[in-house]
């Protein structure tokens, strides 16, 4: 299969404008007859549904939560990047572009990243116009701060709740369109299949999670904004309900899945405390602006941190990466923490923790300064752990956080299935092998507000017959969904979906997490198949499919995670290099840094589903670099 990214001709600065100038339009009077389905109401989905609704299209917006406002974008803390250069540092679109390309270890598409950097400015303007309260300087101007992997202050923020405020902006715009009659929201509905006619997307099958009814919805275009798959690791910073089901089911119908092994393990999370634990909590990367990360130099140190003298503290990020220090990018900071813990220097009950210390910042700038910047994060930490970070350093450890991989999309964010688009974290996106901090919100909103509405419109100018929900394709899809649900209930075994999820999560984190080897990945493939076999022979869910059944919802999601995990291992095994969050121990430099192989792997790997017919088939999209120089990524 030849993958055509459909990148417009011309210089990179004008590619998007070139595309916009030529794309097809639907006249205002005809828009009401065009239907669009948007799956997910996070930043990408909420923004796309609100924008398409405001343009006059008829939009159906689906979310599995009880309200569109609860999508997990809400939990993003630190901020959103934009190349506005309000801090007068000489920042520019080119610099944001270069930082993002480099941050992603040169595994993303230049044209997409440039467009993202260009649109970043509009996002801030749009959000402020909606009433998003970004932090302000004394004169009332927007405030910015610095984030990992960059040397400028281009991150806009609303205290430690930037994701919440941006999501509420999108949610309110969405509800405005609901009131205007352009958008219908289907809450507590989960997408379980995409309906194809002649190979093109014409609708979806969803399950009403309250009544258990299977519903059919037809549309002229389907947009998946269903988020990432990091819950494949069981314990992650994602919400309990975050799942891969919508994208995985699309994948099963022929949408290629790109770079699934590119997952981000975030360095600053609260360490795990027990086996019963259901999720991990992130502490914003912004804390690394003022907190210093260290471990005791002596293994098995028993003194409390305050009693350990300066000379016996190992500030490993500052020592190894003097230029960026504690603000080294996430993949690098996470791996460094893992390395010192592997060496036995870790702290906390499990030995899997490092200190994040605000002592010096409090001494230098006063408690009020630290309070002003991080109060809610400090309170959150104290609530969860019972420790007061003003008195004793925080303990942190890396945790799975974000999926750079996802459905393969072209420049128009369309998957390999015509009429099926993927936006936000659901696509393989612009972050390459590692996402920089404060770039997820930027990408989700660029896709949702400014890209998908145009590319979806363009698709709908194409002539094609509309398909009703009476079509036999809907019958078949509904049968498939009902058979899958019946199969889950009929297993009638003894173990909960959670017990399988936990088991597979251990395998994935251990063998396809922060460090990977060919041997471990091969083992993991076997393990995942074994667990999948046991899942389908010993699963137990509550009976009752035509009613609210949370154990069934969960089992349904786990059934897809099991298959997704296997695909991640295939991808990690095939990519014989280290780049960004994908670290193969066989491929490292003498001083332990990632060793890229640009000759063989400067490409996107997009996988084709084969099901029981055999192993998935990889297809390559070669990446070209004309506007950024391929270089060894160094933060030293």
């Amino acid at each position, binding site marked *: 299969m030849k993958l055509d990214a459909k990148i417009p001709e011309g210089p990179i600065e004008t590619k998007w404008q070139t595309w916009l100038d030529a794309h097809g339009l639907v006249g*205002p009077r005809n828009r009401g007859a065009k239907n669009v389905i948007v799956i997910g109401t996070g930043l990408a989905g909420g*923004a796309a549904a*609100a*924008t398409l609704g405001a*343009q006059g299209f008829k939009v159906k917006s689906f979310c599995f*939560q*009880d*309200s569109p*406002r*609860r999508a*997990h974008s*809400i*939990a993003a803390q630190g901020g959103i990047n934009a190349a506005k250069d309000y801090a007068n540092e000489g920042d520019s679109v080119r610099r944001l572009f270069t930082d993002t390309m480099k941050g992603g270890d040169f595994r993303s598409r230049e044209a997409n990243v440039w467009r993202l950097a260009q649109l970043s400015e*509009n996002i801030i*303007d749009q959000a*402020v*116009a*909606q*009433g998003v*309260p*970004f932090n*302000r300087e004394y*004169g*009332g101007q*927007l405030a910015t701060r610095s984030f990992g992997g960059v040397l400028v202050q281009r991150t806009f923020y609303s*205290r430690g*709740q930037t994701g*919440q*405020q941006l999501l*509420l902006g999108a*949610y309110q*715009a969405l*509800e405005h369109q*609901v*009131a205007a009659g352009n958008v219908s*929201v289907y*809450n507590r509905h989960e997408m379980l299949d995409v309906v194809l006619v002649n190979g093109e997307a014409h609708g979806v099958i969803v399950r009403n999670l*309250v009544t258990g009814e299977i519903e059919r919805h037809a549309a002229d275009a389907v947009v998946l904004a269903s988020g990432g798959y990091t819950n494949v690791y069981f314990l992650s910073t994602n*919400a*309990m309900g975050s799942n891969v089901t919508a994208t995985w089911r699309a994948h099963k119908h022929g949408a290629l899945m790109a770079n699934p092994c590119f997952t981000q393990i975030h360095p600053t999370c609260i360490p795990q*405390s*027990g086996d*019963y634990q*259901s*999720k991990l*909590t*992130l502490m914003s990367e912004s804390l690394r602006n003022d907190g210093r990360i260290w471990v005791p130099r002596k293994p098995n140190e028993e003194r409390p941190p305050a009693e350990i003298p300066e000379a016996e503290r190992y500030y490993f990020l500052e020592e190894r990466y003097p230029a960026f220090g504690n603000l080294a990018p996430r993949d690098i900071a996470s791996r460094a923490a893992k390395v010192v813990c592997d060496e036995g220097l870790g702290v906390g009950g499990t030995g899997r923790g490092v200190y994040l210390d605000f002592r010096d910042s409090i001494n230098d700038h006063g408690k009020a300064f630290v309070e002003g910047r991080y109060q809610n994060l400090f309170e*959150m930490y104290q*609530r*969860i752990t019972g420790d007061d970070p003003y008195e004793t350093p925080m303990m942190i450890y890396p945790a799975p956080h974000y999926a750079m991989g996802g459905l393969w999309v072209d420049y128009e964010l369309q998957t390999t299935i015509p009429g099926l688009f993927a936006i936000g974290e659901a696509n393989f996106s612009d972050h390459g092998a590692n996402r920089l901090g404060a770039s997820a919100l930027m990408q989700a909103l660029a896709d949702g507000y*400014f890209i998908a*509405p145009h590319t979806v419109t363009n698709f709908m100018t194409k002539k094609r017959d509309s398909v009703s929900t009476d079509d036999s394709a809907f019958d078949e899809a509904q049968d498939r969904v009902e058979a899958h649900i019946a199969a889950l209930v009929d297993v009638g075994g*003894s173990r909960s979906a*959670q*017990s399988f999820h936990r088991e597979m999560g251990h395998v994935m984190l251990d063998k396809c997490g922060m460090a990977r080897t060919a041997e471990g990945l091969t083992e993991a493939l076997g393990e995942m198949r074994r667990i999948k076999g046991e899942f389908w022979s010993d699963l*137990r869910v*509550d009976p009752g499919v035509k*009613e*609210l059944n*949370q154990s069934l919802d969960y089992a349904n999601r786990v059934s897809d995670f099991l298959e997704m995990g296997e695909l991640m291992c295939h991808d990690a095994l095939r990519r014989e290099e280290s780049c960004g969050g994908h670290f193969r121990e066989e491929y490292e430099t003498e001083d332990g840094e990632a060793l890229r192989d640009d000759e063989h792997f400067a490409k996107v790997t997009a996988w084709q589903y084969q099901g029981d017919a055999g192993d998935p088939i990889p297809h390559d999209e070669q990446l070209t670099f004309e506007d950024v120089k391929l270089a060894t990524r160094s933060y030293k």
Partner: protein
Amino acid sequence: MNFKLEIWRQFESGQDGAFETFEVTGIDPESSFLEMLDQLNERLGHEKKRSIAFDSDCREGICGSCSLVIDGYPHGPRQVTSCQTYMRDFIDGATIKVEPFRSNTLPVIRDLVTDRSALDRVIQAGGYVSTTTGPQPDPNSMPVAPAVQEEVMDAAICIGCGACVAACPNGSAMLFTGAKVTHLNLLPQGQPERESRAINMVNQMDEEGFGGCTNYGECSRVCPQEISLDVISMLNREYRKAAVKKKPKTPPRMVAQ
């Protein structure tokens, strides 16, 4: 730790429900209240009994999904979300009563799961700035003093959980609505719709059947975001100012093409 739990069980909306008693043992004090319920559900699965339905998603106190009344308090005794309530907050051996949020406007769907879509409809009535996606003015052309931004944020951090409604003897949603009106009406972007917003959102509250505010203050006391009663004063002021203002004639409809 060991606990005796009295949990509200109700199969469907509109049906009768009752408390069912469960004993849980060997609970780690560091586990959260919801993780304790996860463990109970795991056990019920083994016993082939129907698991207890409850809402949760982010489990870090920001999404607003979780909605338990614990020992009579919405979200429990610590003024944090249900998911951030930890078992170390309880006395070993205690009997703990667990109910769904209680209010006519938040009907039970099953067990501890309630329907809070009435709150979404209050937002639909005016909890937004009527703008569409497209070119916007540069934000620094409309400065906002940091003190105003702080006041706005103190209201804008509402997570829409509905604990305020569940706590109020009148079942009022004034704290929720007041928070949104305070957020938007203090900002320059919110000015053009300042009056209609207050009127329309209050009218929608009435239509949904939320009660009036008689200053019990229970809402603010249980609010996990510690939103102040000041937002209710603000809403009252905004509503009164808008209500007494001579209504402009119905503006001419914009004629589309």
